């Protein structure tokens, strides 16, 4: 613990202040930290004058950072300390060609050439189409069969590949292989002029536009010493809550559809649109694109917008209550939701699940409460009643969050603060040789961005993490010993991001 430097969400520090320890100590410190109820926010590599370095940002009730130098191999934390590292280490191997020695299941994350020209850890040549050398998990035996779906799925959804190892109807394991959406964002950003940052950050995961753009904007604000007025913070907070409601409502609709209960599916589908239209009232775009910018918001919320939101909420809140009641009180629905896709509390902790997927398993962590940004320090927290880790819990947590978010927006609308002036993207003078990490509770959970600047104040490394990075493994675990026909239901109860993961 003594090796870790306590930092604050969104506050830039000098890179020189990040404790640099030999890898052995780095390994020991992180192992002890995660075993003692610690979680990983970011863990990534970067290169500096021919030397590879690692940075880990970890949290318990506070936020800490630690760094180390590494060669082209380093001892895997996944192998001996915790599964929480597994995806991060695979990513480091893929991005930088550094091998986590002893990683129990080392394979690619997104299928691309590494940034450094080191020998490829996976022995891929990348001339071949995805997936290259991908060691799929397989189970052998006379009664085992394999079901493979994707990358192009049946509906209008993002691409990914799923392989179910089944014995009859029972799924023994689900392998989820992603990477189809890889756009090379982390590598691209440092090469671009700042004016292109907002557009890209808004599209890391379009259903999480506000949360990702908040992380980006707060990171730039931290590095450029910019402040945001109260009025702008209110708009940003409302936008983040509208995004949360829209997505939760959409997913409750999709869950209704998956249990063939069509009336709520149709109602929720339509009501979700009402919330997207409210985001459009604030931002001119149904997903909130073009709204949040470093230093504030690009469109001011005036009395007209306030009133429109207020009126709409008054009109649809009872509708939402009634449709939720319709869905959750139907016995047929309960019979399908309960005990389906269960992830035990301990498993969820071991994997480090975040957001509603974690809360549905009894992990109370909510970044809005633990590391509040914008207006959250003054707003009440939410609590969850049903936390048994099944589809029913994930659906109920969503319902509770919708009602809570509606309350938060109403409270925020009552505030009289308004922003004076819209803020547009302008070149920001970032402090040199600095480091910042930002965290927000997006609708899926913890979203985080990290930036390292060089001595010329340029972005040297931009690190992005979507909550899906933690939670895809949770979905795979949910499917164990389930009927394969439960997959759609399990999948929708998580509704993870492909592009947020693929980056």
């Amino acid at each position, binding site marked *: 613990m003594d090796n870790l430097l306590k930092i604050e969400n969104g506050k830039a520090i000098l890179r020189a202040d990040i404790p640099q320890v030999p890898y052995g100590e780095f390994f020991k410190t992180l192992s002890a930290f995660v075993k003692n109820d610690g979680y990983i926010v970011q863990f990534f590599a970067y290169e500096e004058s021919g030397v590879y370095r690692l940075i880990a940002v970890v949290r318990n009730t506070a936020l800490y950072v630690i760094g180390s130098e590494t060669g082209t191999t380093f001892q895997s934390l996944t192998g001996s300390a915790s599964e929480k590292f597994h995806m991060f280490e695979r990513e480091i191997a893929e991005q930088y060609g550094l091998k986590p020695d002893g990683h129990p299941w080392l394979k690619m994350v997104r299928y691309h050439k590494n940034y450094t020209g080191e020998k490829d850890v996976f022995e891929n040549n990348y001339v071949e189409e995805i997936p290259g050398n991908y060691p799929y998990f397989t189970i052998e035996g006379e009664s085992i069969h394999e079901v493979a779906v994707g990358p192009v799925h049946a509906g209008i959804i993002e691409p990914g590949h799923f392989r179910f190892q089944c014995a009859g109807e029972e799924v023994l394991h689900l392998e989820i292989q992603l990477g189809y959406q890889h756009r090379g*964002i982390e590598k691209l950003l440092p090469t671009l002029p700042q004016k292109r940052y907002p557009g890209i950050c808004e599209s890391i995961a379009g259903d999480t536009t506000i949360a990702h753009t908040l992380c980006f904007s707060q990171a730039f604000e931290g590095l450029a010493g910019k402040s945001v007025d109260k009025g702008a913070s209110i708009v940003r907070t409302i936008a983040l809550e509208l995004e949360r409601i829209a997505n939760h409502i959409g997913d409750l609709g999709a869950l209704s559809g998956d249990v063939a209960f069509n009336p709520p599916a149709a109602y929720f589908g339509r009501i979700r649109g009402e919330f997207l239209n409210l985001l459009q009232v604030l931002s001119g775009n149904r997903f909130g694109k073009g709204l949040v910018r470093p230093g504030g918001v690009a469109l001011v919320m005036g009395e007209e917008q306030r009133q429109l939101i207020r009126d709409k909420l008054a009109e649809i809140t009872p509708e939402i209550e009634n449709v939720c009641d319709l869905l959750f009180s139907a016995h047929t629905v309960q019979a399908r939701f309960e005990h389906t896709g269960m992830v035990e509390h301990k498993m969820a902790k071991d994997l480090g699940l975040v957001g509603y997927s974690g809360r549905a398993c009894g992990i109370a962590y909510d970044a809005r409460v633990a590391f509040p940004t914008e207006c959250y320090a003054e707003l009440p927290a939410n609590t969850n009643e049903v936390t048994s880790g099944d589809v029913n819990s994930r659906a109920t947590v969503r319902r509770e969050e919708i009602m809570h978010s509606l309350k938060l927006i109403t409270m925020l609308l009552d505030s009289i603060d308004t922003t004076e002036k819209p803020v547009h993207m302008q070149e920001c003078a970032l402090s040199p040789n600095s480091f910042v990490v930002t965290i927000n509770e997006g609708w899926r959970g913890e979203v985080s961005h990290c930036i390292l600047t060089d001595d010329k104040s340029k972005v040297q490394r931009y690190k992005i993490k979507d909550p899906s990075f933690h939670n895809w493994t949770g979905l795979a675990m949910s499917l164990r010993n389930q009927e394969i026909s439960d997959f759609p239901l399990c999948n929708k109860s998580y509704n993870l991001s492909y592009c947020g993961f693929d980056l």
Partner: protein
Amino acid sequence: MLKILKNKLEQGNKTSKYPKEPIALYHRYRGMPVINTDCSADVIAECVCICPQEAIDATEKTIDLGRCTFCGQCESVEGEGGAFVSFSENFELGAANREDLVTGGALPALADHSKQHFKKLFGRSLQLRQVSAAGCNSCEADTNVLNTPFFDLSRFGIDIVASPRHADGIHVTGPISRNMRQALIDTYEAVPSPKVVIASGCCSISGGPFRGSEEVIGDLNSLVPVDLYIPGCPPHPLTTLHALLNYFK
């Protein structure tokens, strides 16, 4: 049962009357740009300078809607002679030719540019296979809503289907990542001819915000011939609806 009836009464019938009756979007929505050619050259230069998409041509005084993300940034630049661009609420942005998207503020009537045999073949029934090729999921989500009761796409005989073998064409979103290239081509090839290709969202038209990344292809037309372009980031559902109805009906 009672709850179902009660909810049904409360919800009523919410299907939009569009296109029979016009529909108004909130004035902040950024649709077809209105271009003010009288503004000073300085204003235009400033717009060119801040546009993240390099969508503005100062000499021709045009905007490329295939590149524009409708971020609204250029609208905020004012100076002598006013602003260069202001965005209208006109959501009718579809075009049959890529060149038409480079616009001084107007588009040719889409209905006149449809291939006649398409109207004949697909006018009464059009089945599309949607392919998300690294789309950020806004484009996908706002295509999906066409199936909600408000838009109710199937009342026009247009459906999104699961199998390319059952489809008359593909509707593509996203900048086409290197890792989706093959799957996209396979899907295209699985659709029986004659078939249509729709590029939806600035990503599939020009790479959108991701253009220049070595991991994306960024121009659907360089892979398969595109018949219909639907600009936006993402296109508003009404933009898509208008484009489909005008091009095929």
